[in-house]
């Protein structure tokens, strides 16, 4: 099974997979929640930059934006050393491909990740260079759930591969040279264990108090970003939708058609696809938006199409006599809309508008794929660092606490409306 890096921990712990083999470093924190076989590879981190960049090492990254993989060893190292090197911002990506894309576009100044993967990746790409090795003493190992009995037999197999030299053969094949004789690729090691034993019950795995206390500040900063993005998207989306609907209803004929076209296009295109286009394709046309602005722009453009349809249906539900009475009294077009039509139309569409606002709030979670540190992003990062799904569960509960009251409110409104007939 092919699972994204930060999904491996939950997959192992829920027994969906037996063993995870990836560039997974053994850390004490992770050992509290999962088990590891003996290490088989010494891994350090590295800094990768564009060949023509003025940045030649970690010392040049002051005030710069640094890319890492969410929850990886590089992420943990960069977070711990942010003060020392004065990184302007650490931006977290879901793997190498999107991180590389943003490095090439120039949104980030450097990418900190596992050295073997980057050496291999940059081998045939002259525009990208690994410029510094960052020693972390990290060791790759295979990850299993605690108490998974397979660990003994797998570990025995690794020992055998080290002793008969086949592990070293693999190293030669992929890196072009033999492994260092002191390295974990050659020497047989013990299964890593914590000095203190942790035995987690199911409830301790999925709702771990210690992990909760450690990670909730991260979740709160994420929540703040989510709320900020959600509110701004809703307010701007409502304004944009109203403008669209009025233009569609009362503008000249070419404008009507344009609005119709717009609304149909953006209701057909998945938000995620549009967001990826805005974030990764617009820079090639000279429009380089920050993650927040890219997400805000996409949400407003797409939700505006839905809001516009809602407003249109509300306005069209107002009887012709209301317009005529307002006109006959001499009210201007503006006052006819503002004083007579819109107040009535809004009342009709409040349930639909609220439903759409809920959708916009939920859709903010998509912004985590453009490295925006929203609630979901912070939660995935926290669960990768602690190798424990608690932060994800907590994030789900936070989404519930925000959205459930809105859902209940809408349901009540809809019931009221239907009982009134």
């Amino acid at each position: 099974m092919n699972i994204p890096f930060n999904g491996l921990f939950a997959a192992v712990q829920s027994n969906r997979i037996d063993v995870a083999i990836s560039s997974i470093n053994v850390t004490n924190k992770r050992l509290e929640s999962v088990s590891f076989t003996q290490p088989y590879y010494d891994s350090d981190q590295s800094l990768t930059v564009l060949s023509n960049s003025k940045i030649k090492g970690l010392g040049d990254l002051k005030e710069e934006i640094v890319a890492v993989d969410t929850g990886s060893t590089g992420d943990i190292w960069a977070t711990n050393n942010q003060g020392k090197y004065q990184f302007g911002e650490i931006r977290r990506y879901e793997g190498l491909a999107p991180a590389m894309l943003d490095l090439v576009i120039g949104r980030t100044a450097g990418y900190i990740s596992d050295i073997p993967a980057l050496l291999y990746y940059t081998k045939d790409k002259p525009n990208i260079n690994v410029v510094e090795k960052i020693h972390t003493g990290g060791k790759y190992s295979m990850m299993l759930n605690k108490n998974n009995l397979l660990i003994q037999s797998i570990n025995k197999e690794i020992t055998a591969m080290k002793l008969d030299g086949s592990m070293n053969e693999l190293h030669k094949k992929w890196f072009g040279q033999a492994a260092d004789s002191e390295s974990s690729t050659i020497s047989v090691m013990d299964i890593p264990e914590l000095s203190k034993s942790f035995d987690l019950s199911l409830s301790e795995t999925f709702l771990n108090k210690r992990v909760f206390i450690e990670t909730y500040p991260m979740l709160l900063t994420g929540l703040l970003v989510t709320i900020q993005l959600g509110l701004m998207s809703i307010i701007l989306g409502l304004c944009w939708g109203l403008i669209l609907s009025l233009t569609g209803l009362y503008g000249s004929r070419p404008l009507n058609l344009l609005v119709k076209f717009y609304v149909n296009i953006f209701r057909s295109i998945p938000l995620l696809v549009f967001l990826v286009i805005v974030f990764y394709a617009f820079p090639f046309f000279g429009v380089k938006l920050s993650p927040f602005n890219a997400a805000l722009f996409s949400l407003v453009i797409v939700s505006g199409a839905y809001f516009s349809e809602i407003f249109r249906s509300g306005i069209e539900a107002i009887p012709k006599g209301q317009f005529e009475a307002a006109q006959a009294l001499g009210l201007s077009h503006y006052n006819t809309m503002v004083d007579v039509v819109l107040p009535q139309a809004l009342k009709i569409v409040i349930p639909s508008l609220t439903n759409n606002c809920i959708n916009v709030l939920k859709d903010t979670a998509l912004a985590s794929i453009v490295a925006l540190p929203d609630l979901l992003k912070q939660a995935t990062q926290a669960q990768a660092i602690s190798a424990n799904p608690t932060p994800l569960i907590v994030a789900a509960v936070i989404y519930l606490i925000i959205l459930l009251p809105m859902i209940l409110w809408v349901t009540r409104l809809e019931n009221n409306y239907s009982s009134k007939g």
Partner: protein
Amino acid sequence: MKPVIIFKNVNKYYHDFHALKNINLSVYEGEVLCIIGPSGSGKSTLIRCINNLEDYDNFGEIIVNKSIVRKDRHLKEIRKDAGMVFQSFNLFPHLTVLDNVALAPIRVSDLSRKKAKLLAKSFLNKVGVGDQIDKFPNQLSGGQQQRVAIARTLAMQPSILLFDEPTSSLDPEMVSEVLDVIKNLADTGVTMIIVTHEMNFARNVADKIVFMDNGCIIEEGDPAQIFDNSREKRTQSFLNSILN
């Protein structure tokens, strides 16, 4: 007396349907004109052309107080001069009775809220619903609603009043309360055009009756002449069918 509304060769088409056929008509200052005729004869269309709720063909002309009625020309003045009361009341359901009446004075005549509400109250008293000002339209009976609608039109102090079948949506027992209000207004000297099916009322209140059929004005004259001495066969048969 001078004419305040003049129709000159006015035609109106809805696609292929010829709704108004070469209408010529003058309404004089202070005159009360009742338009009668069968359904679909063009009565409402004619009255709705006066404040441009309906447009009409270019080669004809409607003149209201010396201004030609055309889209986006003098419309604001014409609509201030000529108020309209609708068959279905068309009160604003989200506003209280008082706010319904005060809205146009605030927005169109630029009166302060306080002055507009005072003005609104005086007209609501005049039509006999002064005790309902804080209610919403759907809390009133049909007759009360139509009287509020009349007050709303009066609050703009127009010199011409247009009534488009003002009692046709009302339950029979409420017709007279509305007709009484209209009759009182007729006695104040304001120019009025009333489209109506109430023949006795028309006979009582009108200075002039216009009979329309099939988009044409068939006959016009004072009530006695139309109701008792009609020269036109079509007028006679219409009146016979209604009055008997």
